[in-house]
């Protein structure tokens, strides 16, 4: 009986030590996991006004090859106070981070964001082109 107990305890300790010693995935400077995924693209784009309602007239057109986002907004949209929202592929992150309102009013200099893949080895810079719906 005693022999069985000693064997079981030993087995438990070995298993525990093995689990504890398995290598964790590393984290980046933002505390996010660096995974093995190399995909790097924007899957969806939303643009909200100061009232947190969408200002898009239609779904934004995302070209993952040209790395562009084209979005048409309503006539009269206040371009200085917009909240962009990106949906990215799993494990990817955005640089620079979006921390509040963004000024899109300088249409000649479209805003750019870089998508960084889950393995942090692939970086793709997307340019967001805003078009204001013309007055008929």
């Amino acid at each position: 009986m005693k022999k069985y107990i000693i064997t079981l305890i030993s087995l438990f300790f070995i298993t525990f030590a093995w689990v504890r010693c398995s290598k964790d995935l590393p984290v980046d400077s933002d505390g996010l996991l660096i995974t093995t995924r190399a995909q790097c693209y924007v899957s969806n784009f939303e643009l909200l006004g100061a009232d947190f309602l969408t200002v898009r007239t239609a779904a934004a057109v995302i070209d993952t090859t040209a790395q562009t986002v084209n979005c048409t907004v309503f006539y009269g949209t206040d371009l200085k106070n917009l909240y962009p929202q990106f949906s990215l592929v799993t494990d990817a992150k955005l640089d620079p981070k979006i921390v509040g309102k963004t000024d899109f009013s300088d249409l000649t200099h479209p805003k750019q964001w870089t998508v960084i893949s889950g393995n942090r080895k692939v970086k793709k810079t997307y340019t967001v082109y805003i078009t204001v719906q013309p007055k008929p």
Partner: protein
Amino acid sequence: MQLKYYNIILLVFFVLSFSACKKSDDTNLVLKNDCIKRTLGPNVVGLNIEFAYAMALPKSAGKIVSAQVEASIAGAPSTYLENRSFYTNPSGVDVGIAVGSASVNTDNKTVVTFTKDTCAATLRYFYTVPEAARGKSVTFTFSATASNGETVSYTMGPYTCTKMDMKLDQVAVDNKACYFSVADMAFYDAATAASNPGKIDLVYLYRPITGINFNYALVSPTATDYLPGVTLPAGLTNSTKMVKTWNLNDFNLARLQYGVYIDDADFPAIDFTNAPNYALNLKAQAGTWVETADGKYRAYIYVNSVAAATSSMTVSIKRYQMK
């Protein structure tokens, strides 16, 4: 051994019966009272603060003779103490039973004299916040007197009254009463706007333009790009900053089921940096924060309803003086 247990149990029963038969505490024979505040949200000048004041004494000790409330600042003339005591019937409806004569306001006191032989009542008190209380704290002392000479009192507060103003259900009509003054919280026609152009902060217009979402809009007189078909009276030069909102259904303004209140502290907190001077495509339950060109006033304009048939929009306003 068994006898020993019987003795112990017997002793416990004796102790219990002795305790249970002890004469009840004398404090139960005195007049008692309690009070709760029934209203939530800011105490705005012109609105009521409601309380429910309960008082009772044993029937054998006497009856209630009077109840009174003393406010630290006299309420507006519409302040009153209910002369009916309410109970809630099985259907959940509050039913009032008259127990005294209508309340009388004398200076800052409101008194109800009981006319019914009653030893328990709950009276509601409605304190209409007066102009004198704007930005100040107010305290209430509720008291009741019984026929045996006993008096009890209960203090509530202090409650801070707001500095802001409020105006409900102002109707804007396109090309008629369409010139809005934040200072007056009112819409004026072109003739009145022309006679006092410095007061006009916004222009209301309704434009159902096909292909774009313009519809109901509030636009500063200087934002001429967004004033199609509007000929402004001379001298309108104010540029009013605006921050659009959606679903900010202030309870006082909307009078809907939402327990959301805009208070004094909210106005200075709004960031008007780079804010536009127009708000297009307003809808019922939308709103907009505004700041006048001189920075004197900030306000929240809530859209209660819109009506395409009459090209009109009904709004309610809370306004705060910044300087």
